[in-house]
């Protein structure tokens, strides 16, 4: 369960006080009537769904009731930064491109899971045959 820093309350709060509201920075077209059906459909339904860095809109629903943005890794679930409405992220997939390659991120595999031969645990072992 996430521990989220609310940029308005200026402290970490439990995830249960917040609601996720989808992708951040979705701008409503300024002149909807001039939008093509495709453009309008894209605005309504088509979202980034990255495996990695994602900018999300959240609301501190049981708290200050303010909406704000979270930059979060959708695999490790690490929260890289939270910032207020109207602000832009300082951390993005691009800015992290070098070090935040997915392979470096620890992935929970769920269930009783197995990490295949591609896993880094191999490189760290001397591969002792038994």
């Amino acid at each position, binding site marked *: 369960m996430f521990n989220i820093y609310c940029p308005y309350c200026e402290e970490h709060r439990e995830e249960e006080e917040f609601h996720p509201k989808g992708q951040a920075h979705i701008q409503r077209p300024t002149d909807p009537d001039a939008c093509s059906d*495709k453009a309008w*459909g894209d605005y309504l339904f088509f*979202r980034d*769904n990255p495996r990695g860095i994602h900018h999300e809109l959240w609301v501190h629903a049981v708290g200050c009731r303010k909406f704000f943005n979270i930059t979060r890794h959708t695999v490790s679930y690490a929260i890289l930064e939270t910032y207020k409405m109207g602000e832009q992220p300082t951390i993005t997939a691009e800015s992290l491109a070098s070090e935040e390659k997915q392979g470096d991120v620890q992935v929970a595999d769920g269930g009783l899971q197995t990490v295949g031969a591609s896993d880094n645990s191999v490189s760290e072992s001397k591969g002792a045959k038994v």
Partner: protein
Amino acid sequence: MQRYSGFGLVKHALSHHENWQRQWRNPTPKKEYDVIIVGGGGHGLATAYYLAKEHGITNVAVIEKGWLGGGNTARNTTIVRSNYLWDESAALYEHAMKLWEGLSQDINYNVMFSQRGVLNLGHTLQDMRDIQRRVNANRLNGIDGEVLDARGVQELVPIMDCSKRARYPVMGASWQPRAGVARHDAVAWGYARGADGHGVDLLQQTEVTGFKIVDGRVVGVHTNRGDIGAKTVGCVTAGNSSVLANMAGFNLPLESHPLQALVSEPLKPILDTVVMSNHVHGYISQSDKGDLVIGAGIDGYNGYGQRGSYPTVEHTLQAIVEMFPIFSRVRMNRQWGGIVDTCPDACPILSKTPVKGLYFNCGWGTGGFKATPGSGHAFAWSLAKGQMHPLAAPFSIDRFHSGALIDEHGAAGVAH
């Protein structure tokens, strides 16, 4: 291919099980295939199986980055039903249901399809209106089902609290007798063995890293084992569909969410049907091994971590204990999560894409397992014929621009 039977089992026992054949080969990739299926889960393997069996297209590869059936196939709670509200989805899921009913014999692999019936409970007047509407629609679509009152529910599930004491007393339920559960791993393995038997190459530990696209038409895929050519490519990668779509240069109206499930310790048989409640928000069945298999809704945020947030599990068990107070002393053994690709209208996408020859089958959200045979069957038809199967046509990506959504949130309210 070695046929399985009780007699065969005895024969093998006498030879100390030394002569079992591989259930599928571990081939090296060819240069090119007629069709490449990306994703070795239930839907992908079923697609490959029907391509070979029904359409004679056997020069096919299934490319899986991990191990066969290791994604949502291995993680779902195995409920199979077809009592969906809208004609389009009802038709697709009922198509699957009919295939389920002969699947074990068709693929000579016991998928343990157990038609023990599914109850969808109603706790409010609106729940009951929706149930009536759905069951009436199912009946006129030729899908079995009836509406039960609280007494009828109590008779079917004596251990459930159907009293007025409950916070949200049970007012009734929809009941689909032909629905039930199946053994998830067996579905993947059975289709895999069947497809392999028809000559399909199953390439595990092989990850697609990109698509080869020439003048807007797909001609192959890049993988960690080199490039592989293909005339047609079908992506059946559930939670990772958006990632692959981006590789091909377009976006999908999908969000990948964590969907959690849990099992109790194994118990002696006590629950003989599947019970689902949208309102109290949980569902439960008992596996043949004796575990109570339990789940509920998705987590609200996007997540590829195959784990979700703890409160979701708490609320799920609150719902289960509310419905079944006698389970308070039963223990939760294990909890896990899958990655479900959800659509705005809680319906799947089976569709052509902006890239010629590249097809996507995704967006099944929480309802994918039950559709496995139907999805694979209709998708194979579409890949073979180069046009979408009539049952698949309504599920095109275009609906998100035309507005012709098929809103199944009612039927999909609880993960299932």
